[in-house]
């Protein structure tokens, strides 16, 4: 058994005692957003009630306290992902903004006509659309690493597709559909051997798997705090110093400059060059508490708990003969994200029947429309776990799916 004390953890999350129509909430939509522990919620109130001020601007006490609190989170994040310097940590509004920053700022400076951008067939729209736009603007080409039957990257193909034409490899660290954990170090080595850089979409990976940007030799890493116990509205972009220094600013305005004349301006140093305007101070400060909470649990323990519950869920749900489960069958190759369909029942019907049992699961295309087309499904239902989920909750999901199968399954083929 993992070292996480799940019962104790659950007490730290006020929302988990919520009842819906008299039934205990079962929250299994963690890949969309996680719930927040009380320490994170309290940090927001403490900031607004105790030291709300704009940062880097005033010399009064509140401004100093707010600036210290905000900047200290940069160090918390640096340590969490094992980056070399705090100035390599840029606060954004989310993974999406972090990827857009790189696609725009690095992309426009580095991508030339005929260059290739290598993605995978299972990217979230966030790590697809920004590259589509860049490729269209720069007459570059998108290349997709295919996936195998059980939702893993076809690495033999990856070796062929990453070539001298490749300028950047942009891949997810963990699929938000299959849960597949991708071989980042191997992909980074392939990219670097061809003089390309690698961007890792860590939105699903970083919250669940210990991630060292230095060990994995990652050039850019993007992730969102709201999927790892933090508030919405904060994302992190990690970038290697040399790359960030060579990039022009993304947005411009107040706060990202050193001197300004009527005609021109010089940019502030890293990281502030990429943090134009008043940032999301309160949520960044609360994000620090989320990371401290995860670090205290230990990311190895988090991972171990998730392997256990994922293995249990894969076995349990398979007992339902009519179920199709996507992605790797081996829990050690994947995170706690399980996409599935029951018989030919529409995902929204499954979602509805689960919702009636106070179980929150996701139903739809999961922002992966091209992948859904590859799988030849309109959508899937998806259950995703985190530190506070239990086997009993998996059992409740199983019961709801059995009910769905009974009421709506076995339709004549249309």
């Amino acid at each position: 058994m993992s070292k996480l004390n799940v019962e104790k953890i659950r007490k730290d999350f006020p929302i988990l005692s919520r009842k819906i129509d008299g039934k205990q909430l079962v929250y299994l939509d963690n890949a969309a957003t996680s719930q927040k522990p009380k320490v994170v919620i309290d940090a927001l109130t403490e900031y607004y009630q105790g030291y709300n001020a704009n940062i880097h601007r005033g010399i009064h006490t509140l401004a100093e306290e707010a600036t210290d609190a905000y900047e200290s989170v940069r160090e918390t994040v640096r340590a969490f992902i094992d980056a070399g310097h705090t100035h390599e940590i840029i606060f954004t509004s989310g993974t999406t903004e972090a990827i857009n920053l790189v696609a725009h700022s690095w992309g426009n400076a580095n991508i030339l006509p005929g260059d290739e951008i290598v993605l995978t067939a299972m990217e979230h729209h966030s790590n697809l659309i920004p590259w589509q736009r860049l490729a269209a603007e720069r007459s570059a080409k998108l290349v997709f690493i295919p996936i195998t039957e059980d939702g893993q990257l076809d690495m033999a193909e990856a070796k062929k597709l990453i070539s001298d034409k490749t300028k950047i490899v942009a891949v997810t660290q963990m699929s938000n559909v299959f849960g597949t954990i991708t071989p980042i170090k191997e992909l980074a080595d392939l990219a670097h051997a061809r003089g390309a850089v690698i961007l890792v979409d860590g939105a699903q990976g970083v919250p669940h798997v210990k991630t060292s940007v230095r060990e994995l030799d990652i050039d850019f890493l993007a992730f969102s705090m709201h999927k790892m116990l933090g508030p919405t509205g904060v994302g992190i972009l990690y970038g290697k110093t040399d790359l960030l220094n060579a990039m022009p600013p993304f947005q411009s305005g107040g706060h990202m400059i050193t001197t300004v004349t009527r005609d021109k301006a010089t940019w502030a140093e890293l990281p502030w060059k990429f943090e134009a305007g008043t940032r999301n101070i309160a949520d960044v400060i609360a994000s620090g508490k989320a990371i401290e909470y995860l670090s205290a649990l230990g990311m190895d323990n988090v991972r171990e708990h998730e392997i256990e519950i994922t293995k249990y869920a894969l076995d349990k749900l398979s007992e339902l003969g009519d179920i199709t489960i996507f992605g790797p069958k081996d829990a050690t190759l994947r995170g706690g994200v399980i996409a599935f369909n029951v018989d030919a029942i529409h995902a929204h019907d499954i979602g509805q029947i689960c919702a009636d049992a106070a179980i929150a699961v996701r139903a739809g295309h999961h922002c992966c429309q091209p992948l859904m087309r590859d799988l030849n499904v309109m959508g899937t239902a998806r259950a995703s776990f985190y530190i506070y989920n239990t086997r009993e909750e998996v059992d409740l999901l199983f019961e709801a799916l059995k009910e769905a199968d009974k009421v709506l399954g076995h339709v004549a083929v249309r």
Partner: protein
Amino acid sequence: MSLSDDLYRETILDHYHNPRNHGAIEHPTAQVEGVNPLCGDELTLYLSVKDGKIEDVKLTAKGCSINTASGSMMSELLLGKSVDEANEIVDLFKRMMLDKTEEVELPEDLEDLEALRGVKKYPVRIKCALLPWNTMLEGLGNALKSPAP
């Protein structure tokens, strides 16, 4: 009683498991595709209209239970009606589903549609119930414009 019982009442389940007028018409007067971009539901509606009357209607749907059942009930009720009558029924049904201020009453011959009233409680799914009907409106408009075959 769980909400599911309410939503998946017998009538809906009956039409879901055995959708009426399922299939295609070889030479339709109108053929319209309907999509619900939110959930990817798709349906194709085939109409055969002659002398202002719906002589045949067929549907192929790829969607959820609500969408399928709603389309099936619609086809059953509108078959044989004049285009004007059909437009009136579509209008009435849409008002029943969308009117937030008053309960729109249905006449006796449309009482099957009562089963769909429960869907109103689930705002995201109202669109599923309306998709066949909105597609029908478009189809009726097209059928009138196109010359008789």
